[in-house]
């Protein structure tokens, strides 16, 4: 119960990565990547990375293969929308195994 004890009388949080908490739990849809369609993965070199460029949360890593940090991804779906190869699909969280 001590964990619940918050002495603050107004709302505040300390400045930290994910200061509003692990915002991945806001997500209703999860981005699922089909790496076989992903352009950098296909070409085996740095290319495209539009998902990394457009992600408003900066949670996409421009690596091969690309990676999405689901701890903070809010599931907005912009990466899936922008991907020219349609390699990213938004899947309902409850439908994801």
């Amino acid at each position, binding site marked *: 119960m001590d*964990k*619940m004890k*918050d002495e*603050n*009388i*107004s*709302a*505040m*949080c*300390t*400045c*930290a*990565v*994910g*200061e*509003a*908490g*692990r915002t991945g*739990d806001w997500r209703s849809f999860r981005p699922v990547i089909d790496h076989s369609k992903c352009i950098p993965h296909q070409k085996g070199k740095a290319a495209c990375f539009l998902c990394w460029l457009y992600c408003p949360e900066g949670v996409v890593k421009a690596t091969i293969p690309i990676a999405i940090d689901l701890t903070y991804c809010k599931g907005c779906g912009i990466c899936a929308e922008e991907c020219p190869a349609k390699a990213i699909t938004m899947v309902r969280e409850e439908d994801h195994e």
Partner: protein
Amino acid sequence: MSRVEIMTGNQAAALGARLARVQVVAAYPITPQTSLTEALAQFIESGEMKAEYVRVEGEHSALSVCIAASTVGARAFTATSANGLLYMHEQIHWAAGSRLPIVMCCVNRGVGAPWTILNDQQDSISQRDTGWIQLYCRDNQEIIDTVIQAFRIAEAVYVPVMVCYDGFVLSHTLMPVEIPDAERVDAFLPPYRPHTILSEADPRTINPVMFADPRENAAGVLGDGYMEMRYKLAGALTEALKTIQDVSDEYARLFGRNHGGLLWEYKTEDAEVILTGMGSIANEATIAADILREKGVPAGVVGIRAYRPFPVEAITHAFRKAKSIHCLEKALSYGFAGPIYTDLRAALYGSGCEAAMHDYIASLGGRDIQPDTIAQVVFERVIKPEADGRFHAPLWINCRTE
């Protein structure tokens, strides 16, 4: 040494803010508040008052500046009236939710449309549910003393305080006012300590977005959710009932003036007919009570000084012997009744008080109301045999209703 000077209510409020050693003033001029902010500007410009006067483009910004100043530890003051107060509305909630002990004078004025610059209390009443403490003053002496007390109260419970007084009736009327000695005010009102000290070593994000349920922060600490924060604010208002009374009692001991804390009473010991109201109209009611007594009606007055928090216990005690209660109101909840009437009925329900309750809407937009008129309308209601405890729509006094 304290000294007596003749001054307006606005000058009294400005002197109160100066004696409280306010550090930041941000205000936008609006009738009838203007001469209060002019006086403060003059004090600051002449060096008599060591404070920053932040000039803003409107009332929303005025209170935003006070919120920022109070957050970083400065004692902040603002003042407004009517539509200016309503323009602040969003930040009025914000100040209370952030638990910032800002003091604001609301120089009560009717709300447009139609335009009026004259007095009623619809402006502050419409801010009733913002989480601010509201204190109503009946004369200029009470204004200077209440502004000083307001900072003590606000900083004890971390809730902002609205000091309300009637526009023109008090704000522009000259009365003798005893100015308390500055050193004794300093002893009564120690420097402001904010509830959270912001520093480079311990930076915070103030008021991040909250979710319905408590959730962990980045450090894994499960903090309060929105509802817990609101519960704490509600608790602070309830706690303020004792604080308002204690501060008033201490002030009376130190300065020799007692304005009554939560409420005040006039000739209520044997009163069966009790008149009630807030601000200057309650003062007029004391003269009306004397007129009624000359007619053989045992009348008295209970003046409400603290409207939020609403002093249910003190009210239940003050009205326990009443056979009829007469609410004199300068505001209205359109489509229902006056705010004092509705709150009194709720507070007294089940308390054993079986008084017949009457509601009077008076003096909207500066319409004159005299003690003999109050005495007359109350007398007519008192002699009516059908008076009972049921709900009755308010009677509009001094208004052509046909």
